[in-house]
Every structure is written in structure tokens, then in C-alpha cells.
């Protein structure tokens, strides 16, 4: 009884559409109006797998995911240590670190687009005024790979703080006595980190890594606002391509098939993660 409203909402706006999308991916739906659309079997899927644009988008998505999550976890680990350390004005430091997380993604993207602006941007001004760079350059508009990296920078700037707060929770669960005991036995801070903190932090690290990978894999909004997929489609990700197929080209079926390929990839990631976790547990026992 108590669960009924929840079940209705979830069924109505999640499960039904998810099933419907699967059906659409086997049809050829090319307009938003109801009607009888032909059944085409797996053709939408084979079309996508044979399309070089898909593989390019997959490559960008993979690069974005690996680069941004790696940086976020490494920097987040450092930041979490700083957040945990006793210091004066710690409350202020924590409030500052939470800022990027709270900043809406679109505002973050617009902000970086402005900072990286080719003619008036603050980064160009800063680097030339410090004589680190001779002339202004176009960060987002000429070199696709440079633009993709700049999107990574903006994403890392925003999401590192989230990762840091997750890891902070993991760090505070580790008893301080362990580190102290190791120090008394003569271990340096690096060894304490490597031998004690890191292994104990592993479950938290794994969880936050998977969460970030799944989020990064679905990336859309920051790309949309920073580069619009360009230059030369060099920052198009899979979700971005799906959006273009379904809503610019009105090829809804092709979009649905693409979306399901994303689902398969996300499920595979989740399975790999569960497998890794089980192996770790088995080794531990």
C-alpha cells in the first residue's frame, strides 16, 4: 500500500518508457506523430556500428571518461587529505571547496567558455601577461583535441570537490591509531599512506570511481554549452550524438538504438565493478 504510489511513478515514467525505447529501437520512427512504423529488426543497431561518427563519439566519450575521472580521483584524494587535516579556518576551507559542486553545470560551462574565449578570455590574458605565451590562442575553436581537454578541465574543476567529500567520509572512518602506531614503528608519511590509508580506503575509492565513470559516460550538458560538439565534431560524445540523431534529425529510432548501446556499456561497467569487488573480498578472506 505504502509502496503503491512509488511503484506507479517509477513504472509510469521509468520502466514503461525504458521498454518503449527498446521497441522504438527496432522500428523506424521518423516523426513525433503516432502511426504505424515499419519493423526493421536490428538495422538501426547495425547502421550505428557501421557509422564512423559513432566510433569517433565513442572515442571522445572514452577519453573524456578516463581523463576526467582519473584526474578527479587523484586530485580529490589530495583535497580530501587537506579537508581532513586540522587547521585554522577549516570551516572556511570546507565552504570554499563545496562551491564548485554547488555551481550549476551549465553555469560552470558558460563560465569556462568565457574564461577560454579566444579574443577576450581571462586565460589568454593571464598567460600572455605572465609571458608564458606569446599570443592569444583559440582554446575551444581550432584544435579538437585541445578543446576536448579543456572540457575535461572544466569538468575536473567542478567535480573534484564532490569526489573529495566522498573520500573525506571514507578517510574519517579509518581509525587514527593505525597511522600513529605505524609512525611509532618508524614508517614515513608516504608509507603510511601507501600501506595503510590507501588499502583501507579502497572500497570508498572504488564506489566513487564507479559513480564518476557512470556520470562521465553520460556527459552532455557541459559539452553542449562549452563547444556545441565542435570544433570539427571533435568533442561530440555518445549522448551528444544521440541527442543530434533523435532531436535534430528526428531519427528517433536511431537515437533509441544509440541510447541502448549506452545502456549496455553502463551495465558492463557495473558488472566489471561487481566482479572486481567480489575478487577483492575473496582475496581478503
Amino acid at each position, binding site marked *: 500500500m505504502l509502496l503503491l504510489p512509488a511503484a506507479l511513478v517509477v513504472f509510469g515514467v*521509468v520502466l514503461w518508457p525504458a521498454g518503449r525505447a527498446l521497441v522504438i529501437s527496432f522500428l523506424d520512427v521518423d516523426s513525433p506523430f503516432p502511426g504505424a512504423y515499419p519493423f526493421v529488426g536490428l538495422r538501426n543497431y547495425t547502421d550505428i556500428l557501421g557509422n564512423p561518427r559513432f566510433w569517433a563519439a565513442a572515442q571522445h566519450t572514452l577519453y573524456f571518461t578516463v581523463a576526467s575521472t582519473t584526474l578527479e580521483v587523484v586530485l580529490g584524494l589530495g583535497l580530501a587529505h587537506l579537508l581532513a587535516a586540522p587547521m585554522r579556518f577549516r570551516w572556511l576551507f570546507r565552504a570554499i571547496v563545496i*562551491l564548485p559542486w554547488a555551481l*550549476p553545470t551549465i553555469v560552470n560551462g558558460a563560465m569556462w567558455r568565457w574564461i577560454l574565449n579566444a579574443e*577576450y578570455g581571462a586565460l589568454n590574458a593571464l598567460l600572455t601577461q605572465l609571458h608564458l605565451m606569446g599570443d592569444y590562442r583559440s582554446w575551444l575553436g581550432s584544435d579538437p583535441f585541445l578543446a576536448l581537454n579543456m572540457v575535461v578541465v572544466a569538468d575536473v574543476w567542478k567535480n573534484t570537490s564532490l569526489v573529495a567529500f566522498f573520500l573525506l567520509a571514507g578517510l574519517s572512518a579509518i581509525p587514527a591509531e593505525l597511522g600513529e602506531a605505524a609512525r611509532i614503528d618508524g614508517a614515513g608519511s608516504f608509507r603510511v599512506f601507501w600501506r595503510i590509508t590507501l588499502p583501507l580506503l579502497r572500497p570508498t575509492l572504488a564506489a566513487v570511481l564507479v559513480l564518476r565513470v557512470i556520470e562521465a559516460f553520460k556527459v552532455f550538458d557541459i559539452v553542449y554549452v562549452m563547444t556545441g560538439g565542435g570544433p570539427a565534431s571533435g568533442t561530440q560524445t555518445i549522448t551528444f550524438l544521440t*541527442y543530434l540523431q533523435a532531436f535534430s534529425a528526428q531519427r528517433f529510432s536511431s537515437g533509441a538504438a544509440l541510447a541502448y548501446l549506452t545502456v549496455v556499456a553502463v551495465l558492463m561497467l557495473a558488472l566489471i565493478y561487481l566482479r572486481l569487488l567480489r575478487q577483492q573480498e575473496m582475496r581478503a578472506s
Partner: protein
Amino acid sequence: MRRTLGALTASTLILAPFLWLIVSSIAGQTDLLERPLHWWPEHVTLSRYREIFTGHEGVAAQFRSAMLNSLIVGAGTVVISVSVGTLGGYALARLTFPLRRTTLLSFLVTYMLPPIVLIIPLYLLMARFGLLDTKLGLIIVYCSLATPFALWTMSTFFGSLPVELEEAARVDGCTRLGALVRVILPLARPGVVATTLFVFLLCWDEFLYALIFTSTSDAKTIPVAIAEFTGRNAVDFGLIAAGGVLAALPPVLLAVVLQRHLIAGLTTGSLK
């Protein structure tokens, strides 16, 4: 010493882009387009903020109506998904029924499902019912994002409360619903607060659905308004910056003031 230095470096890297956004929002147009750039503008103006709050037409007025839409849609989604999630979360945490674990896991999976999968059929459905470009339509789709999340966090939260309290209440003659309302809900308030906040921030931040389901100022939310204006060629960046600062204000204030709630909710909700 090393730590203070690290904290200072991190704070600078975090604050610099943010401060530049604020400076850009109050700098005169000529200051923004200067080369070489001055870091502190010669003309400081609040005209863009004034325009957003009082303007009748143009982009500034669009920003205002978008912000209002965001507020309404966020509030509507919070009311539905948090009440539904509280009831459902309690059921999942306390009652035993067949497939309980499967139900719980399927809610988690739906939360991880890429939204783009749901968008296509929902779009076709909304088009049929005339719900495109309405706030109601947006509230309905946001519930698909928020309800699984609210269910998951609330059931974790209820699970962490001692069962004995309810049992005592029921021994004293409360019905199950009575025990929920009189005993459990007051205890669960921190969980409800955290969930409410997260759902609101989720709606405030959401972009993909809003981009596809809205097209005019009737329902367009603030992220869509900002993205759309940013994408145009001749751009008054100062105005975008002012809109951005205003859009950032509610979540930033909430996050800073309710830091402890947020961090606790963040970690219990998604890690356990």
C-alpha cells in the same frame, strides 16, 4: 605549514574562476572587451542585475521568467517525489514482502539509467498529450529522475533508525501508519531535509530534459536560458555572468549553510 600552503593553493584555484564570473557580471562592457585585460574594471555597474529583476523584455526578462520556472518546477518535483519516496522508502526498509531486495535494486538501476534512453519515448508521449513546453510536463519527467533517488536515500535512512521505537509505539496501540507519522517521521526529519535539498538541486541543475521538453519562456528553466544565450554569436557576456551568478546563488547558499546535512546525505545515500 605544507598543509596551509596546499589549502591556500586549492582555495585560489577554486575561487579564481568563480571570482572572475562575479567581476565580469559587474564590469562595464568596455572593460570586458579590453586588450590587454584589466583585472579590476574601471567602470563598475549593477545595471545587469537591475535589468534582470525589473526588465520587461529581452534576455534579462527571459532570465527572470526562467528562474521563476525553475523554482516552480523544483518545488513541484520536491513535493511529489519526496512524499512518494518517504512512504515507499519506509515500506522498503521495514515491511517484508516478496521481491523486496529486487525492488530496491531495480530502483537503484533505474537511477543509473542514462536519461537519454527515457527521453525519446517520453518526448513522443508528451507530444501526444500536449505536455511539451509546460511546467507540468517537466515536473512529471523530473519525478522520473528524483523518485528513485528519494526512495533509495529514504529507505537507507529509515534502515538506520532503530526498529524498537516503532515496536514500542505499536505495543502502545498505534497503528502502523500512526507509528510512522507520530514516531518515525519526526526522527527522519534530517533525512527528509537532505533528500529535499538534493531533489531541488537536481531539478535546478538538470539540463538535458529541460532542453528537449521546453521551447518558450512558458516553461524554459534557467540552465536552458543560459545555455541558449551563451551559444549565440554576438554575446553580452556580462549579462550571462549576472544570470549565472543569480542561478548559482540558491544552490551555493544552500550548500554552504547546510554543509553538514549535505555531506552526510551525500555519503549515506549513494554509498551504502
